[in-house]
């Protein structure tokens, strides 16, 4: 009984509560007056008495209309909330009716949103989160370089020398300028040695960051005496020193030197470097610890990275001008090293400097990001298609409801809530999955400073993606609902199939185009991977074995290295099947190596500066062992006497710095002008020494008979496993002064150098394959639907003598046309994306082969998707087809 009253009330209730209250009171006073007049009072008297009995009219009016206003507001909210609840209940019902579809939709959407959010959270950690420092907005990075127009960011934003740093620190626009230099350490701990990432830092490093050590700190230099000192990270303290409370003053053996612990960093301090730093040393100890005596004075040694704090009111631009002025004064004093040096100051907004990210991180991230977005879109299209089908089926009902005054907004909301519900369910799954992200990142060794965290930004992003996706997927069905032609829908004997067919075809077309885009890009990646595998690295990898050794007590101990070289080379050379062996600072493709200044007189005569060039140190037979041909001169052999350093340059270096002249016989100075003199004795052919996908860079090898480094390079023509075993036995004997760190074949090294490329390629291939599968299902759906709608027409055609082949050609033609249009769009987009990436991503470029392969694949898939509907269309006997509605 109360229900109809509520409804009537809702309809009749006026929007102006105050007017209603006034009307009500007026009626009351009138009735009262009339009643009083009936007892014999005059009208005036009666009215006065009525008013008197009413009491405070204004007060009652205010109280009552206040109640009314509140109720109107609540009614509106109630109606909306009630509607929303109803919408979602309706949506949940829809989902329950088709649980398979819902599950598939939720999973694919979750995959899309999840992949996308994971990449986002990584970018968030690397590029969006401020540095772990006090007032991070005031932090700037200071770079020097040989010019602003250099091609790679690494060249444009280079390091600084300690001497330059000391001069920069006088700038009044910086409240503080800190410097750090990475170096590796071998630390002797209970029960063995281990490698740790370390930084030599300026003593104000922690002050500039505003993150003082939790315990201890640098002692004044006078009190330090001759002992070296270190501040250790909180993690190092807890995991390696068992969190000992008497940690201050304890000694460690680092690179063979005694070091006293002066402090421990704060527990929460994750560091501002892109690696997990365990030990910090003051610069005063750098010459001893790193074995580079000139590090504090040589302006050509630019291994320092500078991080400054702007003085209050100063801008990065002003600081750059000021430091540029300082650089000019330095250039006057030291023209040979600093004449062309320019200074750049950039805000230190994130752990990975934005100015350096363009190189590798951004293209890769953008691609995976884009691919996951595309997958989300493709998954969304399938969701949209089902919603659309449902909407069309209910089109008459919707039209009737619209004509009866139902608000189109409400109807659209119902549609939207179903797809939003699906997307939200997916986002719950995503959040669950993301909660494993940080532990996984920690397990695979992502430094604490760069670990992605599922913080509010990331959560907000995931939810926003879900909501956005949900709204987007409901867009097509919603548009059709709103545009519904009521009269036409009511008149039509059955739901008009044209809008659905058109909308579905557009959706499927978009799916196909996106799949095409993904396939083109992943195909290009695959091709580039294959290309990398077939690249001639310039040396012969087959039959090479690489043994890396570490000095347990110091990275540079020449006496020990000499002893090692003598013993190891003799012993390895004696292994049957070993044809050649050498020692070097590194083997090809095992790391970044070092760059070092070199003074080239012929280049200097032509007005050139001492360039910084990639260098390796190597014992004799280096090029012979790698089978890199010597094109001019010769390389050092074991029979040469142990004289001064000899240098072999590669062809790129010879071309660039000697031009047409013969470098052989030229005397260069290592480490820049005034450095150690060395004679160029040969020119070697170019080889890819650092990365497979980049062309060879200028490189020189410093060769000495008894000293090369701590990496053994062995060539064998025998069974590699046998040689590996014998080499291991030979290198772990006690008279070898170094510890064996790794023993691998070059083939393994080549495979692992492709690891990242392979991971990215296979991720994209998987996404692409899933996309094609989804698109095929979509295409099959739309072709079947349209074919079914034309059953009658086909029947007539067959009855009039059309051949079955012509009918199936019609059906397949429809599918192929859809694929053709999408294919053209997708191909254009794919090639455009590859061009925009400009080979930055693993050197992937568009090619005719990839485009052809993708077209063949999509064409096949189209035929498969259309064959079944075509066969069904032609199998119908004309008579029953004609009867079909």
């Amino acid at each position: 009984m109360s229900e109809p009253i509520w409804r009537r009330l809702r309809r009749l209730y006026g929007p102006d509560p105050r007017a209603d209250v006034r009307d009500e009171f007026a009626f009351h006073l009138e009735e009262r007056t009339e009643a009083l007049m009936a007892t014999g009072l005059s009208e005036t008297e009666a009215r006065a008495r009525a008013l008197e009995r009413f009491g405070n009219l204004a007060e009652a009016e205010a109280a009552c209309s206040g109640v009314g206003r509140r109720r109107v507001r609540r009614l509106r909210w109630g109606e909306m909330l009630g509607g929303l609840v109803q919408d979602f209940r309706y949506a949940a019902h829809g989902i329950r009716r088709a649980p398979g579809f819902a599950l598939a939709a939720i999973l694919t959407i979750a995959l899309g949103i999840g992949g996308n959010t994971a990449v986002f959270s990584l970018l968030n950690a690397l590029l969006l989160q401020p540095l772990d420092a006090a007032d991070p907005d005031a932090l700037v990075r200071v770079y020097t370089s040989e010019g602003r127009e250099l091609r790679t960011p690494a060249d444009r934003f280079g390091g600084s020398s300690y001497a330059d740093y000391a001069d920069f620190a006088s700038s009044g626009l910086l409240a503080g300028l800190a410097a750090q230099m990475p170096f590796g350490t071998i630390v002797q701990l209970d029960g063995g040695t281990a490698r740790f990432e370390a930084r030599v830092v300026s003593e104000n490093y922690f002050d500039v960051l505003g993150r003082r050590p939790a315990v201890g700190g640098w002692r004044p230099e006078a009190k330090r005496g001759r002992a070296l000192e270190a501040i250790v990270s909180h993690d190092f303290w807890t995991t390696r020193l068992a969190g000992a409370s008497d940690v201050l003053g304890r000694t460690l053996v680092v690179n063979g030197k005694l070091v006293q612990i002066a402090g421990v960093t704060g527990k929460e301090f994750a560091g501002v470097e892109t690696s997990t730093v365990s030990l910090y040393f003051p610069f005063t100890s750098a010459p001893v610890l790193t074995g580079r005596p000139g590090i504090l004075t040589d302006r050509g040694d630019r291994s320092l990275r500078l991080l400054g704090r702007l003085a209050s009111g100063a801008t990065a631009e002003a600081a750059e001008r000021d430091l540029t002025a300082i650089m000019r004064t330095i250039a006057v004093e030291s023209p040979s090293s600093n004449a062309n040096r320019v200074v750049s100051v950039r805000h230190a907004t994130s752990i990975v400097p934005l100015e350096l990210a363009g190189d590798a991180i951004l293209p890769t991230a953008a691609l995976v990001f884009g691919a996951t977005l595309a997958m989300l879109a493709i998954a969304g299209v399938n969701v949209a298609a089902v919603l659309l089908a449902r909407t069309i089926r209910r089109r008459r009902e919707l039209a009737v409801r619209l004509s009866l005054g139902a608000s189109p907004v409400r109807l659209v909301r119902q549609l939207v809530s179903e797809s939003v519900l699906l997307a939200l369910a997916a986002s719950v799954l995503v959040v669950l999955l993301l909660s494993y992200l940080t532990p996984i990142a920690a397990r695979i060794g992502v430094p604490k400073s760069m670990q992605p965290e599922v913080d509010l930004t990331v959560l907000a992003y995931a939810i926003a993606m879900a909501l956005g996706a949900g709204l987007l997927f409901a867009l097509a069905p919603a548009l059709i609902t709103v545009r519904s032609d009521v009269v036409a829908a009511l008149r039509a004997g059955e739901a008009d199939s044209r809008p659905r067919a058109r909308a579905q075809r557009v959706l499927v077309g978009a799916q196909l185009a996106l799949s095409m885009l993904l396939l083109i890009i992943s195909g290009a990646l695959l091709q580039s991977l294959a290309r990398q595998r077939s690249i001639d690295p310039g040396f012969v990898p087959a039959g090479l074995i690489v043994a890396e050794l570490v000095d347990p007590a110091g990275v540079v101990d020449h006496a020990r290295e000499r002893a090692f070289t003598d013993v190891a080379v003799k012993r390895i050379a004696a292994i049957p099947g070993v044809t050649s062996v050498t020692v070097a600072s590194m083997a090809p493709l095992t790391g970044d190596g070092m760059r070092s200044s070199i003074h080239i007189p012929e280049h200097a005569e032509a007005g050139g500066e001492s360039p910084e060039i990639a260098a390796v140190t190597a014992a004799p037979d280096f090029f012979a062992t790698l089978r890199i041909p010597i094109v001019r001169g010769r390389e050092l052999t074991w029979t040469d006497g142990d004289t001064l350093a000899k240098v072999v340059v590669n062809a790129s270096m010879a071309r660039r710095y000697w031009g047409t002249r013969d470098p052989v016989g030229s005397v260069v100075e290592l480490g820049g002008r005034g450095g150690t003199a060395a004679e160029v004795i040969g020119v070697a052919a170019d080889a890819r020494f650092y990365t497979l996908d980049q062309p060879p860079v200028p490189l020189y090898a410093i060769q000495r008979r008894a000293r090369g480094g701590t990496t053994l390079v062995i060539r064998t023509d025998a069974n590699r496993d046998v040689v590996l075993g014998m080499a291991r036995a030979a290198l772990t004997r006690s008279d070898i002064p170094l510890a064996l760190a790794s023993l691998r074949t070059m083939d393994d090294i080549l495979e692992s150098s492709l690891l990242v490329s392979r991971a990215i390629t296979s991720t994209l291939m998987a996404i692409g394959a899933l996309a094609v599968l989804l698109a095929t299902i979509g295409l099959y759906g739309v072709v079947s639907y349209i074919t079914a709608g034309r059953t009658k027409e086909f029947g007539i055609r067959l009855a009039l003598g059309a051949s079955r082949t012509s009918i199936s050609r019609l059906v397949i033609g429809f599918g192929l046309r859809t694929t053709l249009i999408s294919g053209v769009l997708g191909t254009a987009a794919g090639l455009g994306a590859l061009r925009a990436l400009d080979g930055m991503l693993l050197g992937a470029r568009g090619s005719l082969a990839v485009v052809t392969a993708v077209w063949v694949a999509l064409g096949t898939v189209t035929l498969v998707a259309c064959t079944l509907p075509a066969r069904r269309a032609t199998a119908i006997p004309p008579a029953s087809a004609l009867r079909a509605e």
Partner: protein
Amino acid sequence: MTPIPQRLFQGTLDALILQALRAGPRHGYDIAAWLEATSDAALSIEDGALYTALHKLEERGWIVAEWGISDKKKRARFYQLTPEGRRNLVTRVREWAAYVDAVDRILRPAGGVARPA
């Protein structure tokens, strides 16, 4: 026995209004007139207070209001009990009886005066 809540004292007017609507919908003046007549003019409630109470009951959802036409063919606002209001009325009456019973026992401890039914 049923405890007597404090709100009884403030809520008496509410209870009276609910009782006035027990038989069916009435407009505001009708309620005022009915209360006067039924109590033999013993209760004189200020009309303003009556309306404030009516609107608050409506807000609470115990009664609903609707514009309608009075027997004198005028536009009037009619109030009607909701199921919830009806339930409350029953409670109120029970509470009131218990209250009267208790007060009655205290104020007339020894008398042979008949208790109100």
